[in-house]
């Protein structure tokens, strides 16, 4: 029974393919095999996004001592659908001086990247759309591509706020991409594979990478960089509503605006999914419940933590944001690779001692070098 529930989606897919095989030629079956996975992902992603907005509004509301949406349907469960209808009926405005073609394309391009990366996420045992042997590289490469669409939107709007938001997004995403990649390197070092499935299989039976010294820090850095990567609070400078009206999507309305949000939420989901895959053992969990449930649960927890961040933390200043990436994360992740190498190469008691020493040294150095220099007493040169 557990086995059946675990594999229910694969069984359903194979059943559908067998049924189609009765009256379709072989090459169409091959096409159908791809299409079923693709269509499922593309159909589920917007639903996930809709209910993430609902969850976010609910949890944020509760954090701020109020009910979230609770008018449309029970617990406000139909709220996302009502919002969708509202978005579709809104007037679609294009600024007079905008670059119309790029302004039109940008919201469509921006959802492509988060939809593509879902293909390499292992949602459960055997439950992956495409088990690429460079899956991790694919994910990190394609998710960066979203920033170009974002900049397309901001540039083509011909609006100073949009452009500022786009510039900030570019600076932020490129800065945070580097520590994010470097924090993943120890995982690749340990598993010697770039395939997401192989990475999960290396962590089965509770040997999650988050429990190792290097993994704990790497997962923290990865998660924070992920939050920055998807422009969520406290790293939401590109759309800082109190500074630059709405950042890169100032000039968008209606469904185009909703597509920007969709991209943001799907990439939030994808980043959380990748963090689960890399550090939290993916679909590994007690065998009583199906593997996809454990993946979903862990992803949900990470999403909730992101919402929790949003309900708690104020926005970074631009210089703090850049300083955080370049002065804290980057040296730390570089050192972390060395720590992971020590962990892998030394025998059991030695690696613990070496890692403890290494992490202490790195943290101390970071503390020392990042200390703010404040002059004790002001010297007024022209006092007399």
């Amino acid at each position, binding site marked *: 029974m557990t086995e059946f529930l675990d594999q229910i989606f694969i069984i359903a897919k194979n059943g559908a393919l067998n049924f189609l095989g009765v009256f379709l030629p072989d090459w169409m079956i091959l096409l159908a095999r791809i299409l079923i996975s693709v269509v499922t992902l593309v159909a589920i992603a917007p639903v996930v996004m809709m209910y993430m907005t609902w969850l976010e509004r609910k949890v944020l509301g*509760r*954090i*701020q*001592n109020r*009910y979230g949406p609770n008018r449309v349907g029970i617990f406000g469960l139909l709220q996302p659908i009502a919002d969708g209808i509202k978005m579709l009926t809104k007037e679609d405005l294009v600024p007079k001086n905008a670059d119309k073609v790029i302004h039109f394309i940008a919201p469509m391009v921006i959802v492509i990247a988060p939809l593509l990366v879902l293909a390499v996420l292992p949602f459960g045992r055997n439950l992956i759309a495409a088990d690429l042997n460079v899956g991790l590289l694919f994910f990190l490469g394609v998710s960066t591509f979203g920033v170009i669409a974002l900049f397309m939107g901001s540039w083509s709007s011909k609006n100073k706020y949009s452009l500022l938001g786009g510039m900030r997004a570019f600076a932020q995403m490129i800065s945070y991409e580097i520590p994010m990649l470097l924090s993943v390197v120890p995982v690749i070092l340990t598993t010697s594979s770039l395939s997401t499935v192989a990475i999960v299989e290396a962590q089965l039976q509770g040997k999650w990478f988050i429990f190792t010294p290097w993994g704990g820090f790497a997962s923290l850095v990865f998660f924070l960089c992920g939050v920055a990567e998807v422009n969520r609070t406290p790293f939401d400078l590109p759309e800082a509503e109190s500074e630059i009206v709405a950042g890169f999507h100032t000039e968008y309305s209606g469904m185009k605006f909703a597509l920007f949000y969709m991209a943001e939420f799907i990439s939030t989901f994808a980043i959380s999914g990748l963090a689960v895959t890399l550090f939290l053992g993916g679909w590994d969990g007690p065998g009583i419940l199906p593997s996809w449930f454990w993946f979903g649960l862990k992803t949900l927890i990470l999403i909730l933590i992101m919402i929790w961040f949003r309900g*708690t*933390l104020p926005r970074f200043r631009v210089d703090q944001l850049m300083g955080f990436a370049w002065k804290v994360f980057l040296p730390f992740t570089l050192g972390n690779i060395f720590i992971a190498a020590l962990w892998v190469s030394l025998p059991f008691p030695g690696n613990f001692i070496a890692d403890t020493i290494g992490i202490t040294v790195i943290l101390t150095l970071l503390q020392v070098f990042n200390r703010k220099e404040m002059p004790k007493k002001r010297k007024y040169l022209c006092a007399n």
Partner: protein
Amino acid sequence: MFGWGIFKGMLVTLWNFLLTYFYPKKGIFTVQYPEKKIPVAQRYRNFPFLVYDGTPHMIRCVACKICEAECPPKCIYIVPEKDPEGKVLKKPAVFDIDYAICMNCGICEEVCPFDSIYMDHEYELSKYQRTEDLMAHKEELLKPWEHFAKIRPLDFERIEAKRAAKNAKAKPAAPAESSAQKPGPGLIPPRQGQEK
């Protein structure tokens, strides 16, 4: 320690989040408006209403037009009723209040010598149109004296005592006429011309 402040802040928000579920009295303050309402204070005032005793025919207003004259934005319009011979009766035929003009000052309530106009607690007055829909006519303005007792019990007691004292003074003058009328709960002062 580095990051300790963030951790403390996160705990605060988590605490607030949990309070809303496990101790809603302390954690959640929203009043779910159409279903629940915050009770308004007794001295809250919005738009005036006209008082009647017992049945809607027994309007206290005698169409003296004092409120019409005193009203600062001139939102009250009164036409007294006339009998077939053209004699003016002490009763309004038309009593209109334009809600679009009324500024809720409550001066009409203060100047009325017959205790017949009081400020109401009604505040859900959305209308589709601002000229005719917002013009309240006599029929919509009329409310029983018991309504006043319900919305403003303290004022009701005070006014009842005042009216009783006044009535006791006036009573010996016209005992026959007041007995002819059906006495309402508020002891109506004797009126002339109402029998005709």
